[in-house]
């Protein structure tokens, strides 16, 4: 369990925001919202971007 946690920590760089943003972005893209392609792409990218920016403001470890 500890080894698993360490691998997870290595992949995520200790961030909670980045994986959360990816889950939300993937969830959004899977929803059948009937959005136009470019709009769907823009919202998907915006969520990933928010994940990156948000994780950059997390406390450095």
């Amino acid at each position: 369990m500890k080894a698993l946690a360490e691998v997870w920590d290595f992949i995520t760089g200790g961030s909670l925001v980045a994986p959360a943003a990816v889950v939300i972005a993937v969830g959004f893209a899977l929803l059948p919202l009937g959005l136009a392609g470019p709009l769907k792409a823009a919202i998907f990218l915006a969520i990933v971007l928010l994940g990156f920016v948000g994780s950059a403001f997390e406390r450095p470890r």
Partner: protein
Amino acid sequence: MNLWVLAGTSAVASTVEFVEAATIVLAVGFTQGWRAALTGTLWATLALGVLVALFGPLLANISSVHRIEVFVGPFLIVYGIGWLRKAVWRYSGRKAMRDEQANYDREVERLRADRERHLGFATAFQGVFIEGLEVAVIVVTFSATRHGSIAWAAGGAAVALIAVLIAAIALHKPFSRVPENALKATVGIMLLSLGTLWAGEGLGVAWWLGDSTLFALVVLYLGISVILVALMRPQAARA
């Protein structure tokens, strides 16, 4: 389609895929060690060979590649963000720049840890496997447009592979002289951009510029990183 045009188109399309794969292998090689990078590449090539030999004609169905991208893309996004934000922190002063000798020692220690070697291996494997699969799809799809043209399409892809390999070997030395944090930032931006592109493609997002969206994403993430460094620098100075 004229056979030369078919081979040329196959070469150009394959170049994009090979460059993406080479970027990931170089990134893993410089950060996780060449053993992990080259082992991952070798195994991915073998796996691809077996897959193409067994299921070649089925590869014309592009949706199978997109299904794999759904799993690899998010992994690369999270992994890329981890590296890029660390580079942003160091440039802004929120986190101390590492001493090169200490950095080297730590890298050596890191490479001794099995699980990290496995992550480097997994990243190289996934990158080469996905891109190789896309090249196989390109070759099979293009050759389907004209009977008996598979050798021309495959030949175009082979020329592209040789060109990218030569470029990757030529870039190897200059790349190794890049400061560690710049390398981390570059790799982070590339992984994040590729991850975004692939995850989106796999999930059915229609990118505005097709595969060329990758370059737009690189510029975007670079710009955001520069802004973040500028925003964080005064805060770090006050702390």
